[in-house]
Each structure stands twice: as C-alpha cells, then as structure tokens.
C-alpha cells in the first residue's frame, strides 16, 4: 500500500514539481498548465464580463460616442469629466445621494445593532426571530418597491389608512419633496436593517463570556459593560457592515425607479438614476461612461480611506 499523499503543504509548487507525472500524461501537461487550464474559463468570463466592459467604458469616457447615433467615437480628452464635475445637475444629485446614504445607513446601523443586541440577550426563540427578521432582505428590491408603493399611496394606501384611524391626516408620502426622500430611506431601512443586524449579531455572539462575568464580579453597570466591552469589540465588524451598505446605498437605482421615478421633479434622483437617464434617454454613451467611472473612483477612494481607518482601529 502506498503512502497517503498530503492534502496540503506549505510549498505545494515544490511538492508538485518533485512528483513524477502520472503514467500516460503528456510531459508538457505539468500541474501548472493544468491549473491554468482549469482557471482560464473563469478568467475568460471575468475578462469578458467585467474587465473588458470596465476598460471599454474607460475608453468611451474620453469620447463623444453615442450608442444609437452611430458614427465614430471622437476623442475629446477630459471634456466629459469636466462637464460632469462642473454640472449643477450633478451636484444636486450628489447631495440627494449623500443625504440618502447618510440617512439610510445611519438608521439601519442604529436599528440593526439595536435589534441584534436585543436578540443576543434572548435565550429562547433566537433562531426563529433571526430568521423572521431576515425575510425583507431576501426579497427583490423591485418587489419591495412595488408593494411599498401601494402601501404608501396617499389615497388607497394602508399606511394612510392606519394614520387616519388614529385621527392623523393624509400624508403625501411619494409626491412631496421631503416625504419622498424620507419614504425611500424608510423603505431601504426596512429591507436592509436585517443585514446590519446579522453582522452585528455575529459580532455580539463572538464576545467572550468571561469578560461579562468579570464585569459582573466587579459589579459593573449594564451601560458600563455595553460601553467598555460590547461596543468596542463589535465596532470593527459593524463598520465593515456599514461600508458594504454605504457602497450599496451609493448606487441606489431600483427603489427610486419604482417608488418615485426621481420625483417630485428631480428631488429624489440619485446619481445612478441620473446616469441611467444620460445613458438611455439621451444615449450620450461617452458622458454616461465618464459618469460611471467617476462613481467607481469615488467608491474606491472612500473605501480606501475607510479601510485604512479600520486597520488603524485593528492595530490600536
């Protein structure tokens, strides 16, 4: 009986190189080539579906190309980038997006952590509760948008009906400037609070019990335990969840499209929604590409700063 082959080694390449090729295998078909052969379909797919479109969009962003008008793509340097960065329309959409991101992610963080904290203190029914809270996250944003649109309808919606039953007047949730953006934040919060809750719950569960036991022996108050044990230990994990949610919220499109269509006027138009209009109403492909590239750059730069802060937090 032969010796069992180790599953992992510290230097797999060296082991592979010293193993003689199996009988019948071509000498040219080394392990490295085999690996390349197996990886290449995935790499090709990545190249075709992700890398190429990004590079192509980068190229188009320096041209005046239009997908429908045809004709050559004329190089115009940074013309598109200058137009976008100096446009009052874009500044308005950027502010709307910022308010939305801060409002929605802030609310989700507070609620998500709060719910996770309460669930983590329960011993019975914790699994069932967690599963129930996760349901909104599993729904398609379009479906969520559609049923919230019905629920928030000023005339026939269940929300106004409930407000009416307690003596409050009708609220125009989706057609007034302030309430429309608030409605978007509320709906997004309803759907994505469970995500923050899930991550926070994982963090809370991982806090060592002995720390609480030691604090109990010292007769530390509940608030003291929360402030000095729970929050510092869960904070880094919570920040990662916040980062994911902020990136998601930054590129919000679907809920806006279904719930308000950017209205009233353009008061709930986010950056992504505006790009959609530039790309598919005006078919200004070059401008839309530059707009998209700028959004990617903003996300990358902000994420880098955020990650550095997280690393410092970890080191500290």
């Amino acid at each position: 009986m032969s010796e069992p082959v180790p599953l992992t080694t510290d230097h797999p390449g060296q082991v592979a190189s010293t193993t003689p090729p199996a009988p019948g295998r071509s000498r040219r078909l080394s392990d490295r080539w085999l690996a390349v052969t197996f990886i290449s379909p995935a790499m090709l797919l990545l190249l075709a579906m992700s890398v190429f479109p990004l590079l192509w969009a980068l190229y188009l962003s320096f041209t005046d190309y239009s997908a429908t008008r045809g004709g050559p793509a004329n190089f115009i340097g940074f013309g598109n980038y200058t137009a976008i960065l100096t446009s009052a329309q874009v500044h308005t959409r950027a502010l709307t997006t910022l308010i939305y991101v801060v409002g929605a992610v802030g609310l989700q963080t507070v609620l998500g952590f709060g719910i996770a904290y309460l669930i983590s203190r329960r011993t019975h029914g914790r699994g069932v509760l967690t599963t129930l809270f996760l349901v909104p996250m599993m729904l398609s944003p379009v479906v969520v948008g559609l049923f919230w649109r019905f629920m928030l309808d000023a005339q026939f919606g269940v929300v106004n009906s409930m407000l009416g039953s307690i003596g409050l007047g009708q609220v125009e949730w989706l057609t007034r400037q302030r309430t429309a953006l608030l409605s978007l934040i509320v709906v997004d919060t309803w759907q994505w609070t469970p995500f923050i809750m899930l991550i926070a719950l994982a963090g809370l569960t991982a806090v060592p019990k002995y720390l609480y036991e030691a604090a109990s022996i010292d007769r530390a108050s509940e608030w003291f335990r929360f402030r000095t044990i729970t929050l510092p230990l869960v904070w880094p994990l919570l920040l990662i969840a916040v980062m994911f949610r902020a990136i998601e919220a930054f590129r919000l499109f679907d809920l806006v499209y279904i719930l308000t269509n950017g209205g009233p006027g353009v008061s709930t138009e986010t950056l992504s929604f505006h790009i959609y209009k530039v790309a598919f109403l005006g078919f200004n492909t070059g401008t839309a590409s530059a707009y998209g590239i700028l959004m990617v750059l903003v996300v990358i730069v902000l994420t880098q700063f955020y990650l550095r802060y997280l690393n410092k937090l970890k080191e500290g």
Partner: protein
Amino acid sequence: MRSPKRIGRMSAPGRKVRLATAAMLLVATTVTACGDGKDDGEKASAPKAPATIPELTKDPLTLSFIWFDWPPAKALEAFANAEYKKERPNATIKVNTVPNANWHDAMFTQFAARKTDFDIAILDSQHIGEAVTNGNILDLTDFVKENIDVAAYNPYLLAAYGQFPQAETGKRDENASLYGLPLLGDTWTMIYRKDLIGDKPPQTWDQMIAAAEKCQADNPGVSGLAFHQANGSDAAAVTYNTVNGVYGGNLWDSKTRKIDGVINDAAGQEAMDVLVNKMKPLTAKGSGNWFIDEVNAAVAQGKACIAFNWIAASGGLLDPKQSTLGTTREQILDKLGFATLPSQKTNLVPLGGMGMHVSAYSATANQTEALNFMKWFERADVQKKWAAAGGVPSRTDALESPEFLNAGPFNQVYTDSVPRMRDMWNVPEYARLVDIENTNVNAALNGAKKPKDALDDIAKEQQSVLDSSSRKGGGGL
C-alpha cells in the same frame, strides 16, 4: 527533470507567452464584444424598403411587435391572429409588451445593439426622428406610393405617424419621406359625471374648472378633477402641453428651433398658472404621480367629477367588473359622459397614438412579412374590422363608419378631435426634451418648484439640448 528555476516565478519566455496570450484574449474579447465594427464607422441613414413586396415565405413565421403594456396591445394581438391568419396561415403575430416607462429604452437599446427581437416597432410619433436619424427603421416612401391609398387618410395623421421631418401642425409635406403607417389613433377625451355635473359637458376650459369646483364642493370625497401628473413617460408633459395649446401657447418655433421665449411667453405662463393654481387644487391629495391607470381607477371608483385620459385606454371604464358606478354597461353610461376637450383661446387637443415601423435589423423574410401585414392592415375593410375590435383607425372612411362610431361612446370624440390635433416636437432629441418638461411640470404640480421657475427652467434646459445637438464634444448631461 525540470529546471528548479521554473518553480515559483515564470521564466522570461514563459512570461512573454502568457502575456501574449492574455493580450490576444483581450483583443479577442474586444472584437467579439464589438461585433464586426461596421456600424461604428458608418453614418447612419434609414435603409429603403422595396416598393413592391417580395415573395413571402411559406415557412412558419412569427411576426413580432414591441409596444407598451396596455389594452390595445392585447387587442392588436388577438385581432391580428384572428384576421391576418385567414390570409397568411403560416404567420403568427406576437405583440411583446414592456411597462410604459421602459417603452423608449426597450426599443432603442435594441436599436443601439443593431439587433432587434421585434420586426415592427410601434413608435410614438415623437420617436420617429430619433429612429430615422440613427437608421433604425426602414424608409417606406416607395412602398407607400405603390401600396397605400394616401388620399384615404387625414393628411395630418399620415404625417404624424410616419413623416420625418414632421410637417407643421395639420399639414403634410407630400415630398417628405414616410417611415411608418398609422396603427392606432388617439387623443384625450374629457370624462365627466353626468349625474353630478349634468348631461351637457362644459364647452370652455373656464367652464370646466368652474363645474369641477362646484362638483367637488357639493360632493365631499369626490375630487373635481383627475389628470396625468406623473414624472414618468410623457405624463405631466402632455398635460401641460394640452393646457398650453388651449391657452394659445406654443411649444417651440420649429423653423428657428427656438424654445426659450416661446414656451415661456405670456400664453405659456398663463397655461402653467391655470394648471398649477386652478386645476391642481381640484385634484385628489397625493395624485401627483397619477398616470393612465390611476386616473381610470379614480373614475371607476366614482372619485372624480371630471377626468382626462387617452381614448384608447378608456375602454375599461365601461366594464362593470372594474367599476363601482353600475352593474351593467348601460348603468355606467347613465353616469359617465365622454366629450371632446373644452376650448378656450384655441380648440387644440393632444395627438396620441402610434404608427408601425419596420426594424432595419429584422430578417429579410420578416421585413417582407411586416410590409405585407402593413399593407393588409391599412385596407379599408380591415380598418373597419379593427375599429369594431376596439382599435382606433386612421383612415377617414373607417373613422366615419358605423363600425367605429358604434363600437364605443368615446369614438365620436376621436373623429371630432382629428382636425384639432397638435403633436410635440418630432426631433431626435425628443426623449431628453420630454424628460425635461415632465420633471419640471411634475415639480410645479407637487410644490417642488414655483410655476414660473419651472417653465423658465424648461425653456432654458430644452433650448440648451437643441443647441448642443449639432455640436461635437463632451457634456450631454
């Protein structure tokens, strides 16, 4: 034995081979993704359809349309499969639908890909300019000369649904090219509650507002007016354009391509003031995002005294299953009246409806079938059958036929409205122009902008789009 140098880092020749392979893959991906590249270098222009219809295929064939999801789309598919199949048993008609808000994008993204899954695009009249300029649809001029009796139509309907560049309102340029043929005529009808405001409909816009005001005051829970206000599609824009026309305003000066100073002149300002300050207060709370379905729902549930909607979308109002106004069609008609729009300084009404246009990227056999279908559809006897099936025809003989006039209570409204129609701008920049107007009118209706500011913004932004259309360079926001 292999060289230990090859472990960990690649040798120089190996690296070169792999870099070359990666470069080749990138090039191959680029070539595949960009197609054959023929389109990019060529200036688009609409290809010509043959004057005479070539031999039709005997093989089974599906003729696909693209339209938005509303009752006439279902009616067209049922009608065409029932009637056209009698002449072409091997042909099946499929009307693909998308939500109204996606209609333009669904067609033009496929046009942009130079490949369509539809053979006949049902374009809004204002989409023609964009499609013609980009070479997306066939030039039917020669085909129409050979196969269609153009004298049988009101000239404006032919111009509106097929001609580019579009003629002045109410006129057709005999020498201009035709790119489409009428499929469905349409305009707004005024729907009024006979039991609440009387049998006689208001004749002027002022009378209409006064009647709505009184009706609302007399009937708590029922709003005086219901009309399109949404900022999707062309909803709010058509509403403003209608009031603008009635109050003697103009959308632009087509000869000088001037919008700023035209749409926001005194008549335009008066129209915006009437819309926002006199009509809006008579609508239901939260109706700022209403479009076709919501207006119909308000009428069917007895929540509106007077409403405005497209005729082609009004059929459902007479369905007792969808209405609280009566348990039979007759009971509903005792309460609902349909009339042409009231006039004020002019008697203009909005032109709706759409034409049929053949995709330039469809297979030859399908293009041939499409031409044959269009020739068949425009025949006098077929137009009358289409009218009886619930469609709105465009041939004058069909419009005046008992088949059409007896098919619905609002059909007489359409026939009477044809000489009064006015369309929007039929230019390649239409989608951007209508979005600017839509969002600003919607903002004014919902208190996000002052009416005067909204109108001035429309004028300024639309003028900027028109002015930049012939200019090369970045921007395009």
